[in-house]
């Protein structure tokens, strides 16, 4: 379990995910 | 490119040789170091996608040796409990994640109870690779590695299973979540490729993106192979998850490919229950997408389906959704609209058995087409010697040659059909030029003449006098002119 521990992440919005790099 | 690729392949060969020597001598840690050095070649940014793919395949082949060795060790009882942690000590992210996937796979194969956690961990940790090309291949490695290990059982099956399988060995829900997330991230990277590099390289980039499409599509293929995905799961979880990404990405290449992929990989029954959302999504695709091809692919597929009960209102659903698509895409060219309507006629011909219902449906398609043509062309007539003209000719021939009673394509059946279809005449006369009308008439006449029964027309009473009059006076008029 130590080896797979992660923090909860904020979900990226779809708009952000597919936006062109700024 | 060739020189760079050869150099990289050479390094892979050397490092993999050392890796295998170390494995033969039982020196796992050293073997892992060589494996890491080998995978480091995949950090390159000097190779085109095609060359990178070759390098990637070479590395994957060698990693399979490592996997086999580790599986052997596990089966012999050697505990490698810390290995999942140890491989994470690697300082560079690319070798680290490839090794993590390889080791994780071995753990999942030998310890089913770890599957859920490791699957989730691997798909999340791959976020660290944001470089489009390297990220795509890494996630492809993840997907391909896990293809035989994805849980394909429901919670109910586990509960009902008497042999005490633990729930955290994973269920179909975990597999769906895993693949959908991997797919979303891969699509994101794939779409992002269009923004890399100079604008002058746009065409080359597009070509490269097309070469890589299969990497993304493989996620959908894998989903379709999961047997526990029933219609409900497909409708409520899988399809919405896919469509959400496809529509949101607003990229023509991705949308066109993925929608066609969806049609191809999932079975007809699934498509039948999800027509509304699927076609609704088609309406939201970007203007550059050739929606016509997607619609036609779907309709044609269902038209060819066997042993499936099609719902009675299927034609109505298609018809209304196509109208919706046409309305929401004012830039759609007329040829494409006609082509789509043509596929609907084709569907009607193949799937609606009741003659009157079939004729009624074809008429409604003809009417919709007529309305669209009038709207788009205003008062101009479609010329025969144009692309639209050719498309329209094909369209008009379809119901009269294939839509006849008992599927007769010759004789006077086409003539009879052309007269039965109330809108056919209007469509022909109102919006086409003389030449196109003539071609239709010629086609009808030749069909009748070719069958060699011209002297039996009246004799067998297959055309009434009234029908002959209408045919000769109205439909043959262009020929006379």
């Amino acid at each position: 379990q130590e080896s797979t521990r992660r923090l909860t992440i904020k979900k990226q919005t779809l708009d952000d995910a597919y936006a062109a790099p700024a | 490119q060739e020189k760079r690729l050869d150099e990289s392949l050479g390094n892979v060969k050397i490092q993999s040789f050392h890796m295998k020597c170390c494995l033969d001598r039982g020196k796992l840690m050293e073997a892992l170091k060589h494996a890491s050095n080998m995978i480091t070649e995949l950090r390159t940014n000097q190779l085109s996608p095609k060359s990178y793919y070759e390098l990637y395949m070479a590395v994957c082949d060698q990693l399979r040796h490592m996997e086999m060795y580790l599986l052997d060790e596990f089966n012999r009882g050697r505990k490698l409990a810390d290995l999942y942690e140890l491989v994470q000590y690697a300082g560079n992210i690319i070798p680290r994640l490839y090794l993590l996937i390889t080791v994780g796979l071995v753990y999942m194969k030998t310890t089913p109870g770890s599957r859920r956690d490791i699957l989730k961990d691997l798909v999340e940790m791959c976020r660290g690779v944001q470089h489009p090309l390297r990220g795509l291949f890494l996630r492809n490695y993840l997907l391909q590695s896990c293809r035989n290990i994805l849980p394909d059982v429901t919670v109910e099956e586990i509960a009902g299973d008497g042999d005490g399988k633990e729930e955290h060995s994973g269920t179909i829900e975990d597999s769906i979540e895993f693949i959908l997330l991997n797919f979303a991230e891969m699509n994101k990277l794939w779409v992002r490729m269009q923004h890399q590099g100079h604008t002058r390289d746009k065409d080359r980039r597009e070509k490269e993106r097309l070469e890589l499409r299969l990497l993304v599509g493989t996620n959908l293929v894998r989903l379709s192979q999961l047997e526990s995905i029933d219609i409900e799961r497909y409708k409520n979880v899988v399809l919405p998850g896919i469509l959400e990404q496809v529509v949101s990405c607003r990229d023509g290449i991705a949308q066109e490919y993925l929608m066609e992929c969806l049609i191809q990989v999932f079975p007809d029954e699934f498509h039948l229950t999800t027509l509304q959302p699927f076609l609704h999504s088609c309406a939201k695709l970007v203007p550059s997408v050739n929606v016509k091809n997607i619609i036609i692919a779907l309709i044609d597929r269902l038209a060819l389906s066997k042993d499936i009960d099609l719902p009675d209102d299927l034609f109505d659903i298609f018809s209304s959704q196509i109208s919706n698509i046409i309305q929401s895409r004012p830039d759609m060219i007329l040829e494409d609209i006609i082509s789509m309507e043509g596929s609907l006629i084709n569907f009607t011909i193949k799937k609606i058995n009741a003659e009157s219902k079939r004729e009624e449906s074809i008429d409604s398609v003809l009417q919709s087409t007529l309305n669209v043509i009038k709207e788009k062309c205003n008062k101009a007539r479609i010329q025969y010697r144009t692309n639209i003209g050719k498309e329209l000719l094909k369209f008009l021939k379809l119901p009269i040659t294939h839509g006849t009673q008992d599927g007769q394509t010759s004789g006077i059946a086409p003539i009879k059909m052309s007269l039965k279809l109330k809108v056919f005449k209007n469509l022909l006369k109102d919006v086409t030029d003389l030449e196109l009308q003539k071609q239709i008439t010629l086609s009808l006449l030749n069909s009748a003449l070719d069958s060699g029964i011209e002297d039996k027309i009246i004799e067998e009473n297959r055309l009434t006098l009234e029908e002959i009059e209408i045919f000769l006076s109205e439909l043959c008029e262009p020929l006379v002119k």
Partner: protein
Amino acid sequence: FRSGADIDIILDGAENRKLAEIKSEDGKKDRYYLYYDGETVSGKVNITLKKPGTKLDHLGIKVEFIGEIELYADRGNHHEFSSLVKDLARPGDLIQNTSYSFEFVNVEKPYESYTGTNVRLRYFIRVTIVRRLSDIIKEMDIIVHTLASYPEVNSPIKMEVGIEECLHIEFEYNKSKYHLKDVIVGKIYFLLVRIKIKHMEIAIIKKESTGIGQNTFNENETIAKYEIMDGAPVRGESIPLRLFLAGYELTPTMKDINKKFSVRYFLNLVLVDEEERRYFKQQEIILWRKGEKTRKQIQ
């Protein structure tokens, strides 16, 4: 002037005592017996005459337990913070091989053994045969580890940093205090990305400070560089971080040791852009050594 005797120091319970490693000044790894604060240090001193039958006269034999700090810039001065002496023999003659027992009961060992770039803290047992002209001396190092238990308060480090109109990130590390075999679990969330990022890495930096006040000398050493992102993210991306400290040679944080030196650790989050410009944010973390027993109990 050659020494007339060999001295061996044998520690009690050596066969059951763990050995620990410590880097020597020349970078090699030495292994010595491991002790903890409060433990009794006892054993035997064996003196073997080089020429049996000959007499070795001396002005006394003693054993010392010493803890000292040596600043390399000031080699002549060794700062002893711990010094215990036991006399083993009064002035006289040694005519045969002799063995003496010694015991330093419940010895205070307040600091951890440390070998750094500019300073060394060591503990050792020194046996001296005092003679008129030159003493015969034998030293035996031991290593001391200082243990701590789980801190009562261990809040995560969470911060938003940025360069206006250019790059804004929010980073989070799950704790501010980590034991030496711990895992740093974190994430970096991108709020604004207007630069072409090539990659992101996290470095563990050790800062050794020696001296006090105006005479403080700082030495930075990058213990680890760990790549956590390859390529350029866009806004809204969350990049996971999982860094295992057990893979690196670290010591506990040492603050103001005997007013002589400090050893502190920092995490340096670095983003590198396509033109090799580096954007970084440094954050101190506290490292501590967890006792083996504690770990096992929790397990």
